[in-house]
């Protein structure tokens, strides 16, 4: 294909201003705040992991730029099917730190009752669906929800985020096929290293989708691509595949810094705000940890709930036995 990933943010903030930025000031500030909060949360999780208090932890920072940008570029009523690296999207869609930390540690207040691996949050109010451990299945769900929106005449979109390992799964093939067949308002956002051959965006062409190739560490480029795809999808123009190239680690590290240069240039942020906001994030995370510690671990009482709408006799019996075991 020979295309270079589209980038908007460079050392010179003026250059991004010359392109049309699809986020308003409020969204830009929220985006930068999400990245900062995600970094604090990630640092804390990494520390807990090193200390052995969290058994399973997948850093979300390397994916935070594209994750937060996609989440913020969507409408509140759009649906988001995340990968397991999308803490930033979870936070951007209104996820609470307390819930995130409780879920991380399977603590008493965990909204998911200790069922899911750390970082696999769920947020119905934010139309953010708990990821499973299967690679790529969410691609098909986004196609399904997009089809439902289309059948119901709702002007919304469904977006799935996934990595290159999902691309070789069947759901990538069937999901893209289904979305194209129905011209459903779906957006498929694939984070890649840029080294995949042939490039992922190129494969979208074969399915008959619109494709975009963007710098995945450039929040504005990702947000713009999602916003454009969203407008097209809602207008009946069908689904889009966006390849967000994450590229070199140092670029990832710098994703927030690049955005900061831009929001400062816009007059939305400064050193004073930065200091106060980072301190507030730290306080919130530490408060959440303290709350979780006070609440203690999730008990086994609900271990057998929520399998069926009503507990069938087998589970009633098993629950009774589980309870007896507790009493011994």
């Amino acid at each position: 294909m020979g295309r270079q990933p589209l980038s908007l943010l460079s050392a010179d903030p003026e250059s991004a201003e010359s392109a049309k930025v699809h986020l308003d000031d409020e969204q830009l500030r929220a985006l930068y705040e999400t990245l900062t909060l995600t970094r604090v949360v990630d640092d804390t999780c990494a520390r807990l992991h090193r200390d052995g208090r969290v058994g399973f932890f997948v850093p979300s920072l390397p994916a935070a730029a594209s994750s937060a940008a996609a989440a913020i570029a969507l409408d509140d009523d759009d649906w988001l099917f995340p990968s397991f690296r999308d803490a930033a999207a979870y936070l951007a869609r209104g996820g609470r730190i307390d819930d995130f930390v409780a879920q991380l540690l399977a603590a008493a207040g965990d909204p998911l009752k200790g069922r899911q691996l750390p970082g696999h949050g769920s947020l119905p109010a934010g139309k953010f669906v708990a990821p499973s451990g299967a690679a790529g299945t969410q691609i098909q769900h986004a196609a399904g929800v997009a089809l439902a929106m289309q059948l119901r005449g709702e002007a919304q979109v469904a977006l799935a985020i996934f990595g290159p390992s999902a691309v070789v799964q069947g759901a990538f093939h069937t999901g893209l096929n289904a979305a194209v067949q129905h011209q459903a308002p779906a957006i498929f956002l694939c984070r890649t290293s840029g080294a995949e051959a042939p490039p992922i965006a190129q494969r979208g062409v074969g399915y008959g989708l619109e494709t975009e190739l963007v710098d995945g560490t450039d929040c504005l480029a990702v947000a713009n691509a999602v916003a454009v795809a969203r407008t097209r999808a809602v207008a009946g123009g069908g689904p889009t595949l966006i390849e967000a190239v994450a590229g070199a680690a140092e670029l990832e590290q710098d994703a927030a810094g690049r955005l900061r240069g831009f929001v400062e240039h816009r007059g939305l942020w400064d050193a004073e705000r930065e200091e106060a906001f980072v301190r507030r994030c730290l306080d919130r995370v530490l408060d959440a940890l303290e709350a979780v510690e006070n609440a203690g671990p999730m008990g086994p009482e609900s271990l057998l709930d929520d399998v069926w709408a009503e507990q069938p006799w087998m589970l009633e019996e098993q629950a009774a036995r589980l309870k007896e075991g507790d009493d011994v």
Partner: protein
Amino acid sequence: MSELTIAQAVNHALRAEMFRDDRIVVLGDEVGALGGLFGVTEGLLEEFGDRRVIDTLAAEGGLVGTAVGLALYGLRPVAEIQFADFVWSGFEQLVSEMATLRYRSAGQYTCPVVLRVPYGAGVGGGMYQSQSPEAHFCQIPGITVVAPADGTDAAGLLRSALRGEDPVVFMEPKRLYREGRASMSDEVVPLGSARVRREGADVTLVTYGSTVPVTLEAAQLASARGIQADVLDLRTLVPFDIAALLRSIAKTGRAVLVSEAPRSGGYVAELAATLAERGIMHLEAPVERVTGFDTPVPYAHEDKYLPDVGRITAAIERVANF
């Protein structure tokens, strides 16, 4: 009024439920203009249009995953897998997604998909159009598994499935599709309740779906030989009607379990285990199974593969005379 076949009864119930609940959508490969490979969705496209009757590509992973998405959004998808044998490529979506959404989201999300799965041998379909995969379905927590044996139950159970909040695998015994029984009715058959098809005090025969007619025939033959069989049609495999099973074994003390699926690790082994655990004080003979063989379903000699009246009657006599 003429009697409805199973295929017609399912069609009738689908149509009636679609009028009743506009969230219900039907999808699958050729369910639209063709009306489904077995004609079960005939006329629905004309009646409800292509926003409610949706032809999908022939890829079961895509079909089940799409149904999951539709259900997440609040619709009530009824997805047709053309043959149970094709469900395997949809199994990841079925096991990892459809079945777990309620549990893994702690009840935040539900997934009320009805997966219609024509199953079973006896139509000359060979090994890829004849399988009975119920044991696989029944090992998945969160899925309700249904297998009706006649039109009345098929329609009534489908109504329950469509009005429930959980994913249901609705196994349709395809070699009985053209059998008549049902009359037009609005009966709702509750999930999880068995039906006593015949009463007798000597031996309990337990079966479901496609093997109900042959089991009843064997019971008739045994009766002529002086053995009176209680015939239990489970109708729902998960959760099965344990009270009905234990009530019958308390009466007869002897049991023959009939299923056309392969024998080892089969669904009826769960019933045998339940009888061993809860019915041991009543048992006066070993529990016998009459099943398909531990082979793929062959193209030729299907009649040898399938439990027939001879094999079932022989088992009844062994158990009764033990």
